[in-house]
């Protein structure tokens, strides 16, 4: 991973990215770039390489090609799965792991009443409460980039839109560039600016409003036809 000073407003440039795990190609020849403040949704079928792309952006897996972040990038990350059921850790203690000095305020910013959840065990929270706590965790140290793997995994449908709406508000208020992985194309259309579709390579890149068109869905979920380049700008 490279940090670089850019004057063209791009916060991330990925060039010819290739990732293999156990000699199996997971991502191949992926090239795209993203301007600051954009919300980019990453979609694709299971096994398309979405989570692996996040892991590469965090330098958690070896890769070929180039990942260039602008200087002073601070990344907040929330993985899709967490093992919280077997660990007796309260919400207060969990937020303290991230260095929260005022957990009440950060919980309020994600729509949670600290009186109700602060001393609750993390494993005793509902799916929606847990995802909100995770969002709170991710924004504590004021990141300018957020990587969110399935933000509403384990959340009932009613709470889903509220969580995405809150994420949208937080990112706009704080100038955060948001990358989110989602399977729900309706959510992608409503709450993101651009969509990057992966199926080992880049199969679609465009504005999110195009995502509901039948032709686009054929590109995303049909037989992969690799594209050369994706560019998300203002």
């Amino acid at each position, binding site marked *: 991973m490279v940090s670089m000073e850019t004057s063209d407003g791009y916060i991330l440039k990925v060039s010819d990215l290739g990732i293999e795990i156990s000699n199996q190609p997971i991502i191949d020849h992926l090239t795209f770039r993203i301007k600051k403040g954009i919300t980019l949704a990453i979609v694709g079928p299971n096994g398309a390489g979405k989570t692996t792309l996040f892991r590469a952006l965090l330098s*958690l897996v070896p890769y070929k090609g180039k990942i260039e972040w602008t200087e002073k990038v601070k990344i907040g990350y929330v993985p899709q799965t*967490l093992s919280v059921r077997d660990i*007796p850790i309260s919400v207060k203690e969990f937020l303290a*792991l991230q260095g929260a000095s005022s957990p009440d305020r950060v919980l309020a910013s994600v729509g949670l009443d600290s009186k109700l959840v602060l001393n609750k065990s993390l494993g005793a929270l509902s799916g929606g409460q847990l995802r909100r706590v995770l969002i709170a965790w991710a924004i504590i140290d004021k990141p300018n980039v957020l990587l969110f793997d399935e933000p509403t995994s384990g959340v009932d449908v009613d709470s889903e839109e509220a969580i995405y709406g809150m994420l949208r508000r937080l990112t706009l208020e704080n100038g955060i560039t948001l990358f989110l992985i989602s399977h729900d194309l309706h959510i992608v259309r409503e709450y993101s600016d651009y969509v990057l579709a992966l199926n080992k390579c880049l199969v679609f890149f465009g504005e999110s409003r195009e995502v509901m068109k039948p032709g686009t869905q054929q590109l995303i979920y049909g037989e992969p036809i690799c594209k050369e380049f994706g560019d998300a700008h203002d």
Partner: protein
Amino acid sequence: MASQSAKNSVMLMTDVLLFSIVVSVAVGLSAGYLGSIMVLEKMALVGDALSHVALPGLAIGLLLNFNPFIGAFAFLFTSAVLIWYLGRVTKLSFDTLVGAVFTLALAIGILLVPQPDLLEALFGDITKVGIVDVVASIVISIAVISLTRMIYKKIVLGLISEELAVSKGINIATTNLLYLLLVSGTVAIGIRITGTLLVGFLVVTPAAAARTISTNLSKYLQLSAIFGATSAVSGILLSTYFNILPGPLVVISGVVIFAIVIIIRWRMKISS
């Protein structure tokens, strides 16, 4: 003359008992504290298995006539580093690797330990606790608790999500090595009280009891340490009273605490 001799004997007994209680508090606190991680990591049997690795070290100490616990320390630390290294190279889990080496160590240890000392090595003996053991157990216990406090957050974050921990710059491999060394240190001092066969108990049962009634980490840590110290001290007092080996009595005391905790929790559930 006879009265002076009896007085000296009582004083010696009192010193030994006092030393044993201090050692058992130190061992119980650190074993309970560190054991809380082992229970969370689902590695409860690692401490038990690792303790058997100490036996060949004890044997070499006895055969070559130096402090057998230095031999135990050396074997435990070397084994911990070896297990950590093999884990990195082979990607096998710690419990698998520890399981693979511990029976061999037990077999070698039993063959090497002189017959008259075998019982003491296996089940502990407090009558030989001296000032050196007291100082060593206090120093090691303070070091174990302090270092465990340092790595606790990192380990908990790694348990919640390894990716999250790595993304925060936590080096999981280094943390695991330090953790194994701490387990080795705790096991080494615990052997004095319970012997090699039963020391694994001290890092598992107090934490298991604490886990059943804890809803947050700080309570869980404190209760694990308190239950560990209470089990160890109760076992030592019973051992002195009944004049039998301490190891089994430490275990029985801990199991009684565990049973009481389970009953309290059960009653609380019924009343709520």
